[in-house]
C-alpha cells in the first residue's frame, strides 16, 4: 500500500508508456494487428483501475500539501525536479482522463484501417502526456508534458483524419505551439527572477516559487508580472480556446478521428482552463484580477458567439465543436468570477463538458461510420430507423443544453450564481456590471436550446427523407455499452453533484484566498445581514 501511495502517479504515467513500448514490441515480433486494440484497451483499462486507488483514504499529503506527492531531483544543472502531486483541482480531471481513454479506444474498434500500430501507440503516448500535465508541479516538467501531448494529437489528426486533415493538423499545431512557446519563455524568465531575488539559485518548482512569493521574498514588478501573466494566459487561452483564438478547434474536431475528437474535447481543452487556475491565478493573482474584465468579456462573447455560429453549421460535428466554444466560455467566466461558487462551477463544468461533449462526438462518430457524412441535410427522420440511437442522442443533448438533474446544469448554474455574487467587475450606482455579465451569460441557456434542438429536429424527426438512410442499423451492443457509463455519469453528476464538488472545495478556497489575499480585501460580497437591511425601514 505504501509503495502504491508513494508512486501512484508515476505508475499512472508509466502504464500507458510501457504499454506503448510493449505494443510496438508485440507488433515487431508477432505482427498480430487484430490484437492491437485489445492490448491498448487492456492498458487503458488497467490505468483506469489503478487510478481509482486515488480514492484511497490512507494517503497523506506530502511536503507541499499535495496527495501522492513525489519529488525527485531530475536535472541538477538547472535545478529541475520530477515533482508531481495531485489536489482538488486535478483530482477529477485525472480520473476523467483515465476514464475517457478506454472509451475512446473502444470507439475505434472497427474504424482504424491505416497503420493501426502507430495509431494505438499514439493514443497511449497521449494518455501518458495528459496525465503528466495534470500532476506536474514543476514548471519545466509541466511544459514538457504540455508540449508532449501536442505531438500525438497532431499525428492523430494529420494521419487518421478526414479530407482536410493536413490543414487542420497544421493549424492545430501552429496555434497551440505559438502559445506554448511564449509560456516557455515566461517559465525561464521566472526561473531567473527567482534566482535573482531569493539568491537560492533558479527554480522551476511551483510550490517553492509560491512560497517565496507568499513570504515576500519574490516580488514581481507589475510590468514584468503582467508580461509573464500574458505569456502563460495566451498559451492556455489558445488551448481552451478563448474567443478569438478558437478557430483551430472546429477544424481540428471535424477532421480528427472520433477517438481524437473525444479526447480533444474531454481532456485536451481542459488543460487550458486547468493551467489558468493552477498557474496564472496562483502565480499572478494581481494580474489575474486586473485582467478579469477582459476574460469575462471574451467569455461572454464566446458563449454567445459560439452558440450563434453553432446554430448555422451544416455539419453536425462542427456544430458540436462550436458548442464547445460556448461551454468553455462558461468555464472561463466562472473561474474569473473569483467566487467559490463560480470556480467550483467552472471545475464541475469542465468535468460535465468532458463527459457530455465526449459522448456527443462518439454519437456523431457512430452515424459517420454508417453513412460517411455528417451533413445535417443528408439526414431527417433518423429516429424511425434508429430509435435507440435517437433516444441516447436526445438525452445527451439535454445534458448539454443544461437540463436540471443532468450534469450540464449544476456547473453552469453555479457559475452564474458565482458571477452574480462576484465583485470583480465594477459596481456603480447606475449598474452592477457583475449582474449584467451574469445576465448576458444566461442567454447562453436559450441559445444552447436553439442550436441543439434545431439540429436534433432536423436529423432525427420528421419523415425519413433520404432513401440512403433506410437501411441504417441501430446501435450495436458495443456502441450501447460505450454510452451506458457516459449516460450514467450524466445523471449521477446531475443528481448527486456533492461528491464531485467536495473534492475540489479546499483547493478552490485556497486559490480564491490567494487571489483575494493579494487584493488586500474581500472580493466576495459581504452577505446582507438582516439587521443591516432592516435599517431601510
Amino acid at each position: 500500500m505504501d509503495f502504491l501511495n508513494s508512486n501512484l502517479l508515476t505508475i499512472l504515467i508509466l502504464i500507458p508508456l510501457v504499454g506503448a513500448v510493449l505494443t510496438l514490441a508485440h507488433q515487431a515480433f508477432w505482427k498480430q494487428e487484430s490484437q492491437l486494440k485489445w492490448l491498448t484497451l487492456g492498458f487503458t483499462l488497467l490505468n483506469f483501475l489503478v487510478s481509482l486507488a486515488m480514492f484511497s483514504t490512507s494517503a497523506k499529503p506530502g511536503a507541499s500539501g499535495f496527495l501522492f506527492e513525489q519529488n525527485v531531483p531530475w536535472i541538477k544543472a538547472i535545478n529541475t525536479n520530477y515533482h508531481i502531486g495531485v489536489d482538488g483541482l486535478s483530482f477529477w480531471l485525472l480520473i476523467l482522463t483515465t476514464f475517457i481513454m478506454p472509451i475512446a479506444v473502444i470507439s475505434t474498434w472497427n474504424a482504424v484501417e491505416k497503420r493501426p500500430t502507430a495509431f494505438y501507440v499514439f493514443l497511449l503516448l497521449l494518455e501518458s502526456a495528459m496525465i503528466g500535465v495534470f500532476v506536474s508541479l514543476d514548471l519545466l516538467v509541466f511544459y514538457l508534458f504540455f508540449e508532449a501531448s501536442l505531438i500525438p494529437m497532431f499525428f492523430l489528426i494529420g494521419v487518421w483524419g478526414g479530407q482536410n486533415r493536413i490543414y487542420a493538423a497544421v493549424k492545430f499545431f501552429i496555434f497551440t505551439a505559438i502559445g506554448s512557446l511564449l509560456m516557455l519563455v515566461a517559465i525561464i524568465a521566472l526561473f531567473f527572477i527567482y534566482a535573482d531575488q531569493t539568491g537560492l539559485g533558479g527554480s522551476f518548482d511551483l510550490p517553492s516559487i509560491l512560497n517565496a512569493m507568499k513570504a515576500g521574498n519574490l516580488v514581481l514588478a507589475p510590468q514584468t508580472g503582467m508580461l509573464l501573466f500574458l505569456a502563460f494566459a495566451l498559451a492556455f487561452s489558445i488551448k481552451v480556446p478563448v474567443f478569438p483564438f478558437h478557430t483551430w478547434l472546429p477544424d481540428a474536431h471535424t477532421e480528427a478521428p472520433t477517438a481524437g475528437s473525444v479526447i480533444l474535447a474531454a481532456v485536451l481543452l481542459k488543460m487550458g482552463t486547468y493551467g489558468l487556475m493552477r498557474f496564472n491565478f496562483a502565480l499572478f493573482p494581481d494580474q489575474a484580477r486586473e485582467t478579469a474584465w477582459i476574460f469575462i468579456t471574451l467569455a461572454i462573447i464566446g458563449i454567445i458567439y459560439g452558440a450563434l455560429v453553432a446554430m448555422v453549421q451544416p455539419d453536425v460535428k462542427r456544430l458540436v465543436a462550436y458548442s464547445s466554444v460556448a461551454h468553455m466560455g462558461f468555464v472561463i467566466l466562472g473561474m474569473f468570477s473569483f467566487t467559490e461558487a463560480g470556480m467550483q462551477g467552472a471545475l464541475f463544468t469542465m468535468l460535465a463538458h468532458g463527459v457530455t461533449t465526449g459522448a456527443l462526438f462518439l454519437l456523431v462518430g457512430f452515424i459517420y461510420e454508417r453513412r460517411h457524412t455528417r451533413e445535417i441535410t443528408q439526414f431527417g427522420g433518423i429516429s424511425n430507423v434508429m430509435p435507440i440511437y435517437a433516444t441516447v442522442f436526445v438525452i445527451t443533448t439535454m445534458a448539454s443544453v443544461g437540463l436540471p438533474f443532468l450534469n450540464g446544469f449544476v456547473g453552469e448554474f453555479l457559475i452564474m450564481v458565482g458571477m452574480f455574487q462576484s465583485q470583480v467587475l465594477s459596481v456603480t450606482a447606475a449598474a452592477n456590471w457583475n449582474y449584467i455579465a451574469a445576465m448576458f451569460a444566461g442567454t447562453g441557456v436559450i441559445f444552447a436550446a436553439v442550436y441543439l434542438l434545431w439540429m436534433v429536429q432536423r436529423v432525427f424527426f420528421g419523415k425519413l427523407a433520404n432513401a440512403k438512410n433506410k437501411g441504417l442499423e441501430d446501435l450495436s451492443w458495443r456502441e450501447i455499452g460505450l454510452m451506458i457509463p457516459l449516460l450514467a455519469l450524466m445523471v449521477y453528476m446531475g443528481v448527486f453533484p456533492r461528491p464531485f464538488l467536495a473534492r475540489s472545495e479546499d483547493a478552490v478556497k485556497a486559490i480564491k484566498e490567494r487571489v483575494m489575499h493579494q487584493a488586500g480585501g474581500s472580493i466576495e460580497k459581504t452577505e446582507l445581514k438582516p439587521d443591516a437591511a432592516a435599517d431601510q425601514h
Partner: protein
Amino acid sequence: MTENNLLSLIIFAPLTGAVINWLIGGRLKNEAFSGLVACGSILVSTIVAFYLAFVANGGALFIEHPVLDHIWTWIQVGSFRADFALGMDPLSGIYACFITFVGLLIHIFATGYMHGDKGFYRFFAYLNLFMFAMLTLVLADNYLLMFVGWEGVGLCSYLLIGYYTKKNEAREAAKKAFVMNRIGDWGVLVGMFLIFTLTGTLSFFDKTVDGTQVQSVFSFVLANMSVEPFTWGAIIAGGLTSVGMLLFVGATGKSAQIPLLTWLPDAMAGPTPVSALIHAATMVTAGVYLVVRSNAIYQLAPTAMWIIAVIGAATAIFAASIAIAQNDIKKVLAYSTVSQLGFMFLAAGVGAFTVAIFHVMTHAFFKALLFLGSGSVIHGMHHEQDMRRMGNLKKYMPITFITMATGWLAICGIPIWAGFFSKDEILYKTFAADKYFPAGKFPGEEILWGIAVFTAILTAVYMTRMMVMTFWGEERFHHEIDAPHHDDTHDEHNDAQVHDDDEEEHHHIPHDFKPHESPWVMTIPLIILAFLSTAGGLVGVPYAMSSLVGVKNANTFEHTLEPVIAETRMESAVAARENAKSHAPEVVQKERLLAGLSVVMAVIGIAIGWFAFRNNPLRKMPKILEQKWKLDELYNGFIVDPITRLSRERLWKGFDLGFIDGIVNGIGGFVMEFGDLVRRTQVGFVRSYAAIIVIGALALVGYFIYYGLKLVG
C-alpha cells in the same frame, strides 16, 4: 414543522411508472399493462396527495405550518445551498390535489384515446414523467427545485408535442415550445440569482435541516425589505421589482402570455390528452403558481404587479379575438386557454392572488373537460379537427355533447357553474383594484376592467360559435374547404404510426361515414369533469353571493389559501385586508350589481354567438384574426431570420473563416512556402510538415530564450 415522508411518494410514484413503462412496457407492448402501470401510479399519487392535504396531521390545507420532506441536499457550495426537499402548504396542496385528480382522469381517458397507437407505452412513459415533473414543480420547497420541475415539464411538453415524430408540424411546434419556454427560463434563472443575492436563501419555508436554520425568502423579505417605488426605474434597480419582472418573464414563457404566447396554439399538434393535461389544466398554470408563490415579493413591487395585470388583460383580449376566427376545434380551445391564463394574471396583478388560484382550479376542470370533449369529438370524427366539417354531432355523441355543454356554460360564466364564481371575482377585484391592491392606488383599473368585461363577452361568443359549429346545424362531414388544405394539422395518432410509407397521408372520410360516441373509458372522465365544472366553484363562493341565500362563510377556498398570502405591514395592504373582511353593505351591493352585470354580459355573448352562427356556421371571419394578427410572421421576419443571417454571413463566414483564418492561413502559407524552398524532401507529407514546424519552433524557442535572458539579465 411537520415531517412526512409520504410526501415524496407523490412525486416518485409517477417516476416509477415512467421507468417501468419505458423499460418493461417497451418490451411487452401490451396496452393493458402500460395503461395499468400509468394510471395506477397516478392513483397512488392522488390518494397520497388527498390524504396529506385533508387527513394526515390535521390536513396540510388546514394547519399553520407546511408539511415538509427533506430528501437530500442537492447542491451546497459556500453559502449557497439547495435541497431536494418537498413541502406541502395550502397552495401546493391545492395544486397537488387537482393535478393528481385531473391527471388521473386524463390518464384514464388517454387509455381509450391512444388505443391502437404503436407508441402506447412511450406515450404513457412521457405522460408519467410529466406528472413527476409537474408535481415536483408545485411541491418543491425552494426555487431551485421548483426550477427543476419547471424545466422538466418543459422537456416533457417538448417530447409530447413532438410525439407524432413524423409530422413536420409537430416537430416544429415542439422545438418552438421548448425555445420559447427557455427564453422564459432565462428570466427565472436570473431572477433566482437575484433573489439569492438579495436574501441569501432560495427556500420557500422556514425550516431546520441537519441542525441548520434555513430562513425562507419570504420571511426575509417581509422582515427586512420595504415597498419599492411605483416607477419605471424600479424595474432595473436590481431590487424586488427587478426580481418580480424577471420571474414574470419566466411566467410569460410557461403560461403563454404576451409576448411569448405563440407556442401554445402550435402545441396542439400533440395528442389531445396532452393538450388537456399539459396545455390547459396544469403546466401552463405554473406561471400563475410562481407569481402567487412569490406574492410576498410582488406585494412590495407595485410596478411589477401593475405590469402583470396589464399584460394579463392584454393577452386575454388578444387571444380571445383570435379564438373567434379559428376553425380547428383545438385551436379555439388553445387560444381560449391563453385568454383565460390572461385572466389569471390579471387577478394576480391586481393583488387578488387567491382568486387567481381559484380560477386556475376551476379552469383546470372546465378546460380539461372541453379538451377531452374535443378529443372525444375528434375520435368520433375519424380524426377530423376542422369544425367546418362537423355539425349536428349532438345526435351522434350525446354524452360528449351534454358534458361539453356544461363546460361551455362554465367558461361563459353562467351562475352556479364553476367558471362564474372565479371569473366574476376577477372582474370585481379588477374593478375595485384601488381598494384591494396591496400596494395602494392602482392606475387604469377602469380600463382593465372594461377590457376584461369585453373579453368575457368575446369568450361567450367564441365558445358558442364552437359549440354551434360542432353540435348543431346540418351535417357537413364531406364539406369541401376551399382554403389550402393542410393535412398536417390533423391529430393523426393512428395514421402516423401505422403507415410507414413516405407518402403524404391523405385524409378521407368514407361516404357512408357516421360519427360514433366514444367508449366508456373516455366518457366517464368527461362525466366526472362535467360534475366538477358544475359544482366545483361552490367551494369559493364569495360573501356577496352566499349571503344572498343566508350563508355567511362559504368562501372556504379563500380562507384556506389565506396563510399563503404574505401579510405585509404596509398601510395600504393593511387597509386592503380590512376592506376585504368588512363586508360593508354598500360594497356587497356593488359586488352583487357587478355580478349581475357580468351574467348579463355572458348571456349577451351567448346570444350573439347563437344568432350569428346558428344558421350560418361557416360565416367568414376577418382574415387578420384567422391569421393570428400575423404574429409568427412578425417574429420570424424581425427576430429569427436576421439573427440567422447575421450568424451565418457575418460571424461564421465573415469573422471566423474570413478574418481570423485569413490571418492564420497567411502566416501558415508563408511558413510553408519558406519551408518548401529550404527543404524539398521526398518523405511523406505529414512528416515533412512536422519537420518544418519543429525546426521553426526550435528557432522561435531559441529567439525567445535569448530575448528572455536579456529581459531578466
